């Protein structure tokens, strides 16, 4: 191996630039590594949610009618409001990242707080949605509703007969709670991470003030969480009527 | 095929087995060839080019596209050829002919329930006629199982909630293993049985007879089955032991008890000893026997008592068809002539009660069933 080991000493003199970690040569390499790392992590999240989307697709394909009737109990208005709220929170997140690039600490903290506020609004609306389902016994498990008419009203009746298989409706709600629940867990994790980021900015920590990439990484995560919702909303709330 | 009594291949007893074995042995030949090439090559190079040996190391090769393509394309082609044969075999396995005779199978933890088209039912045993295509339609009552007949080279998963199918044409009479081949819980390995391939005439007779052998089992024989199933023989042997007294010849004899009293062992006593064993404890023993109250039906008790009355005497051998899965482990029995299966199974054994029902003189020591298929 003809390696020449006489390169000038890079790695040891950056005490002033303490945002740089010891394993990296320069801040550019560090930033690129963090960004690539976050994208790779997001690809694992795609596979994570992807399996659930696959299961959903399969069952909806097989039980189109039952899924359609089951979905009518969902509140489209609340879902649409949630979508708008999350989209807006992505906007505030973008503004936070831009402020970080411009090193405007006050703006960063403000925009991040607005992002958290939107996330909390999202969760509160979700709480109301879930409560309504629980009240009507539309949560999956042993306690699932057995009376189709009571649960879905006249949507469930066709030509005088009950037209929905309650087992398949339960399948729909298993997926609904499973997927929106997993999404909500990611929202909560996002709130915690953004909270930690706010705290770092508040304390003027060098790790976030000297370089904007940590903020951008959190932004990437938040956009991903938003994107998952953009898929969930039409799939669950905006079903076309099957033939 | 066996090698010094070690079987090297399962019996080939179906139409699929013959085509299967061709593909299998082709793959074996291919594998042996390439294994030898790699092993011999690696060892040869390791020796010839060992550090310090005089060998021509000039002009070493690091890349050679033609060589790479050769050993890419040739394995690819060989692989695709095997894929073709394997697929052809697979399509045949998955495509039952139109005129199959249908039999239905339900798998459940932990037994197989077969039902013939005319209503005849059997458990863990499948009687089929020789030479006719049979299609099994199967479903599970609980968890996943799989129905596997190695001698026929067929297997198919048995799934709850949907029907699956399997077909074959048996080409040799005899008895062959059925295994459950999808892990299904505690007694997965005891969920086996056998396929009994019969001459079409015998099969027709068997079917018409409601699936029974012509002589129904006597009460003593039924009792013997229950006795074995409940493992009474774990404690009650031919001689008195520490655990339990022998039951041989106790009927109508006086029994002395631990508290000094005694009774003649009549039917009532025998029944009571099973369901209330501590009412009269035999002298020399304690309260060791389990209480079988409410574990045995009255019908079973009648059969058990009938058996105990004759236990140890020549007329008490259990029949060998429908070997009970829960009895003590012995090799599945087989008889010499297939035609005797339906009619003579019971007689063959009661004729020679002292013969161990699982071995014939001169038969190979192991592989009763496998060898049976071969000895036709």
């Amino acid at each position, binding site marked *: *191996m003809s390696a020449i080991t006489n390169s000038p000493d890079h790695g040891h003199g950056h005490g002033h630039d303490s945002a740089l970690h010891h394993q990296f040569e320069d801040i550019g390499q560090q930033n690129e590594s963090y960004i690539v790392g976050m994208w790779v992590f997001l690809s694992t999240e795609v596979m994570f949610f992807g399996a659930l989307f696959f299961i959903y697709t399969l069952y909806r394909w097989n039980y189109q009618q039952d899924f359609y009737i089951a979905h009518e109990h969902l509140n489209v208005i609340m879902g649409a409001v949630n979508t708008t709220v999350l989209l807006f929170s992505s906007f505030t997140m973008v503004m936070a990242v831009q402020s970080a690039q411009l090193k405007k600490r006050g703006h960063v903290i403000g925009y991040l707080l607005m992002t958290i506020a939107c996330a909390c609004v999202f969760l509160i609306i979700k709480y109301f949605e879930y409560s309504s389902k629980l009240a009507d016994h539309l949560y999956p498990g042993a306690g699932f509703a057995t009376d189709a008419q009571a649960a879905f009203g006249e949507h469930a009746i066709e030509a005088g007969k009950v037209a929905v298989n309650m087992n398949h409706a339960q399948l729909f709600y298993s997926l609904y709670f499973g997927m929106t629940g997993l999404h909500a867990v990611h929202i909560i994790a996002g709130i915690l991470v953004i909270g930690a980021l706010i705290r770092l900015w508040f304390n003027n920590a060098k790790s976030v003030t000297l370089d904007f990439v940590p903020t951008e990484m959190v932004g990437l995560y938040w956009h991903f969480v938003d994107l998952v919702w953009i898929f969930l909303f039409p799939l669950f709330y905006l079903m076309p009527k099957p033939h | 095929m066996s090698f010094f009594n070690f079987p090297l291949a399962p019996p080939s007893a179906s139409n699929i087995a013959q085509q299967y074995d061709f593909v299998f042995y082709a793959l074996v030949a291919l594998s042996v060839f390439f294994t030898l090439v790699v092993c011999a090559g690696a060892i040869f190079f390791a020796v010839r080019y060992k550090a310090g040996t005089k060998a021509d190391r000039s002009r070493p*090769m690091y890349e050679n596209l033609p060589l790479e393509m050769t050993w890419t394309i040739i394995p690819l082609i060989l692989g695709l050829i095997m894929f073709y044969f394997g697929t052809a075999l697979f399509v045949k396995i998955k495509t039952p002919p139109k005129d199959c005779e249908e039999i239905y199978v339900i798998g459940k933890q932990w037994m197989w329930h077969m039902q013939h088209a005319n209503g005849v039912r059997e458990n863990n045993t499948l009687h089929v006629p020789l030479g006719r295509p049979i299609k099994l339609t199967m479903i599970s009552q609980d968890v996943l199982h799989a129905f596997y007949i*190695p001698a026929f080279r067929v297997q198919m998963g048995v799934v709850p*909630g949907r029907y699956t199918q399997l077909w074959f044409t048996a080409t040799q009479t005899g008895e062959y293993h059925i295994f459950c081949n999808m892990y299904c819980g505690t007694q997965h*390995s005891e969920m086996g049985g056998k396929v009994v391939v019969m001459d079409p005439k015998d099969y027709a007779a068997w079917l018409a007879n409601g699936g029974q052998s012509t002589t129904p089992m006597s009460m003593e024989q039924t009792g013997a089955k229950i006795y074995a199933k409940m493992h009474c023989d774990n404690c009650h042997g031919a001689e008195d032991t520490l655990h339990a007294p022998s039951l041989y010849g106790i009927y109508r004899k006086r029994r002395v008890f631990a508290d000094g009293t005694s009774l003649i062992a009549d039917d009532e006593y025998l029944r009571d000893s099973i369901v209330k064993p501590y009412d009269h404890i035999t002298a020399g023993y304690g309260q060791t026997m389990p209480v079988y109250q409410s574990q045995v039906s009255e019908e079973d008790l009648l059969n058990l008592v009938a058996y105990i009355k004759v236990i140890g005497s020549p007329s008490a051998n259990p029949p060998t068809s429908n070997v009970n899965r829960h009895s003590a482990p012995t090799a599945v029995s087989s008889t010499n002539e297939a035609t005797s299966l339906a009619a003579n199974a019971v007689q063959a054994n009661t004729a020679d009660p002292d013969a161990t029902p699982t071995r014939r003189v001169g038969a190979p020591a192991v*592989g009763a069933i496998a060898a049976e298929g071969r000895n036709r």
Partner: protein
Amino acid sequence: MSSTVISPGELKPKPPAEEPNYLNVNHTISSWLLTGDHKRIALLYLVSTSFFFFLGSIAAGLIRYELTSPAGVVLESDTYNKVFTSHGVIMVFTFLVVAIPAIFGNFLVPLMIGARDLAFPRLNLASWYMYMTGGTLILAGMVFGGVDTGWTFYTPYSSMYSNTQVSMVIIGIFIAGFSTITTGINFVVTIHKMRAPGMTWFRLPLFIWAMYATSLMMILATPVVAITLMLVVYERTFKLPIFSPELGGDPVLFQHLFWFYSHPAVYIMILPAFAVVSELIANFSRKRIFGYHFVAFSSLAIAGLGFLVWGHHMFVSSQSMYESIVFSLISFLVAVPSAIKIFNWMATMYKGNVHLQSPMIYAIAFLMIFTVGGLTGLFLGAAGTDVHLTATYFVVAHFHYVMVGGTMLAFLGALHYWWPKMTGRMFSDGIARVNAVIVFVGFNLTFFPQFIVGWLGMPRRYHYYYFAPEFQAYHIMSTLGASVLGLGFILPAFYLTQSLFTGKKASANPWGAHGLEWETSSPPPTSNFLETPIVMDEVYDFDPVSEHARDLRNLQEAEEWKKAHDGMDNLPEEDN
């Protein structure tokens, strides 16, 4: 005149101060448990994976012991079922998937590419803690009742029928899965972004190529099995209908999702083994790997195609015939890159200078055993032959040939090869070579009879086989072989551990190998290199003719030294 009395003992020369290296730089417990140093983390993984391997081996020993008799020996069926499940779960999820990447990948990836550490050292440490948490939960599940579903957790048995510690063990697997994912993220970013100047992609050691392909699979496949197993837990806890047929669910859907991960998982287990074998064969033949580009791209091909073959585990599951045919075709395609590697490795030995030290013995044994394992995969990839062989001992033999005969042999080869680098000590190569032969012989004695008994029809996961006693002879043969194999696995624990105390101190490059990891001291300093290396050529730039000349010189010197010292065996180290 004053004189100071000095006792003779004080005149002893002080031993030279030991160079600071990653092992001796700090001895406190927290410096190990809170380390960011990839090399220390690799050692943490070595100790913990060895522990899990030991537990999995005990389970294996129990299985083999129990199978010597058709009616069992000491276990009830429920217990036996729990024992084989724990063998599978522990070996797959806490050893095979983890061992070579987490130990040798962690240790060597930065060294081989000339970096100071991985891209995310703290994430690396977190990865180890996730592994320990997951592994502990799995063991807790085993202790508090065990699991009896098989490591494949098929529904509806696992989701609705089994009343064992399924949920606890699955949560343990879920957490350990995140350890795999974070390791994969770390490797991908490190290999992309932190190569030393001059280290282009095609100058990388093939170890790195294979680790890269492995990481891609870890990242993309593991989340799927994580969510699938969690769904089983949800189904058990909340009685959901996702896999329950009575309520409209599909039990075979679980199998699709499970094998979508678990087939790439087996390539995750074998690609690092390929990585190791490439290094061993090149370095111990003192020759560039033949067909470098082909070997590098074949790793990527295996990773890609490996995602498309999962259905070959499901030919008799009620999957449609057409699906099965497609999966069978692609399975034959994925066999080709492995064949390419085998031929390339053999061609590397041609006109090389083969040094038959213990790592090379393991590598040659790998070639032979993996070939058998791979070829027997063809029997299973052809749907027609698979119908008879699936779920029998033929499958068990096949996967043990590739997993134990493949991954485990490569693991042992790697352990011996990089031991001096990691610990700074040399072990006795004579014992190690004998041990390699013991492993080879024991392995074949154990698993070859299983091909036969599987072909005869013996199903797997069977506790009793009393209605087929013709199988017994093969089981007894297999168990005898397992005793020999067990010996081969235990001995290294002793002679390697002993070398830590009494072994000769290793030089930077005791094997005469090429690679950046051999350009730094043994053990390396914490920051790996005193100065960042600059790379000018491909790593395997041996010249066989001059290597041969050097070998002749070494042999001659060895002869002369032996003559001068009356044939004593304590040869000084070769000139490398």
